């Protein structure tokens, strides 16, 4: 039983008239409450896979099964309803929100769209979500641009868990945060995974972060899977040239830590 099963996924773009595959015949599965990391240099197709899995763009070939249903043939209201179970957290928490929005509106949207709580009950739900991600409930009335980057990313996580998803795609979700905040956000993600049994597709170029949170890792190179396996094992003994290059790019202190 897997939450997400991707098989033979391919996405081609045209660059200078020539077709080139941004994602080339990629297959993987994610189980319940599992964290699968996608690593690779920039341009290796990590973010394209994230957007394909979320149906923000359409693949040229392949199959995506989400919660044992064919996700690619869904459309209209059925697709929108199913999106409640498959959420995303973006890299830049400022760009991820409507610049005019308040925290309350950002968290109200998923509750409203999916009819999760009656209107009168929503302020209480919003306060509970904020507390769940370690924020003060009084933050609800603040504008998005008034709060700090770390707080914003917590709000993004609160929005993602509002609809009780089984899978969250984290596209470089901690890369834009400074180191101390990054640790707190990673703790929060691990805690949520334990409590709510959420699976993560964790996209990052930072192997140090991946080793701290991921169970398995897939290393991508030019749209193809270069190697895969247990996250700690692959990072300790990379086999592919891309894997070796990524490990070599890690700070030495981090690399030598057990």
């Amino acid at each position, binding site marked *: 039983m897997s939450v997400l099963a991707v098989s033979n996924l391919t996405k081609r773009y045209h660059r200078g008239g020539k077709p080139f595959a941004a994602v080339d015949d990629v297959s993987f599965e994610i189980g319940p409450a599992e964290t699968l990391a996608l690593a690779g240099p920039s341009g290796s197709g990590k973010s394209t896979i994230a957007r394909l899995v979320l149906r923000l763009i359409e693949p040229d070939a392949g199959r995506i099964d989400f919660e044992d249903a064919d996700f690619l043939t869904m459309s209209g209201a059925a697709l929108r309803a199913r*999106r409640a179970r498959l959420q*995303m957290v973006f890299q830049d928490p400022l760009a991820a929100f409507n610049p005019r929005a308040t925290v309350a509106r950002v968290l109200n949207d998923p509750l409203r769209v999916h009819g999760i709580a009656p209107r009168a009950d929503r302020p209480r739900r919003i306060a509970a979500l904020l507390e769940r991600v370690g924020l003060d409930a009084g933050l609800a009335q603040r504008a998005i*641009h008034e709060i700090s980057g770390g707080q914003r990313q917590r709000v993004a996580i609160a929005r993602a868990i509002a609809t009780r998803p089984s899978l969250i795609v984290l596209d470089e979700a901690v890369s834009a945060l400074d180191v101390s905040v990054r640790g707190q956000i990673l703790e929060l993600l691990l805690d949520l995974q334990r409590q709510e049994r959420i699976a993560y597709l964790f996209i990052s170029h930072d192997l140090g972060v991946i080793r701290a949170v991921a169970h398995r890792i897939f290393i991508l190179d030019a749209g193809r899977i270069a190697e895969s396996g247990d996250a700690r094992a692959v990072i300790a003994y990379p086999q592919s040239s891309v894997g070796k290059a990524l490990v070599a790019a890690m700070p030495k202190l981090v690399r030598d830590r057990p």
Partner: protein
Amino acid sequence: MKRLRRLLHTPEAIAGALILALLIAMALAAPLLFPGDPQAIAGPALLPPFRDWSLPLGTDRLGRDVLAELVHGARTSLAVGLAAAAAALLIGAVVGTLAGFAGGLIDEVLMRMTDAFQTVPSFLLALAFVSIVGPSLGVVVAAIAISAWTGPARVARAEVLSIRERDYVAGARVIGMHPLGIAFREVLPNALPPVLALSSVIVAAAILTEAALSFLGLGDPNRVTWGSMIAEGRTVLRTAPFLSIVPGVALVLTVLGVYLAGEGVVESTAVRRSLS
């Protein structure tokens, strides 16, 4: 208060705001200052200005009080100008947002329609519309709006094209929001500032178009308008030029005031945008 002070940071903006404030006060106070029908006969015909202080701007060919007509005319000019501009901006913003956000065939169809409207000279379009439907205030507003919505539509579409690629639009899709909800709740409000920047130009053009239509006798016949006053004065232009000059100057000042105030608004929002 702070916003108002920023708005009034240039002498041009202050002048524009003053002219507009005066006009709006004049339009609002018209029934108080000159109760009754402004088209009623008030004295001897063709009385020149500044002779009789009960009729300070004189009388026209039929002995009507020019100042009363002028003040009541301000109501029509401003009402038509603002209503037509509001309608044009609304139609333009909705069409532009749908075209930009939907893309593909819908975009093609809507933008070719915009092209079609834009290739017909806008004044001729308004003229044709009024002559077919018949002159009344609502028809004049509609006629001006259908000839002015294309500019806002193009600007809105261009802005939407850049906004729809932003992460927060993808975020709204991930949440499962309906595409129309995304277009009108998330995208449109953020695409509005450059569209609203057009409003001063459109209000000014609408006031001029209304005056031109009235001048040609296609305004609402039951209302005094500056255009119809100029047309009335034209027949006695040699003997009583003030009958055309007075409403003409009012028209020039109004358009100037709208322009200057509009520029002030655009500049103050531009400062705010570059600061954020």
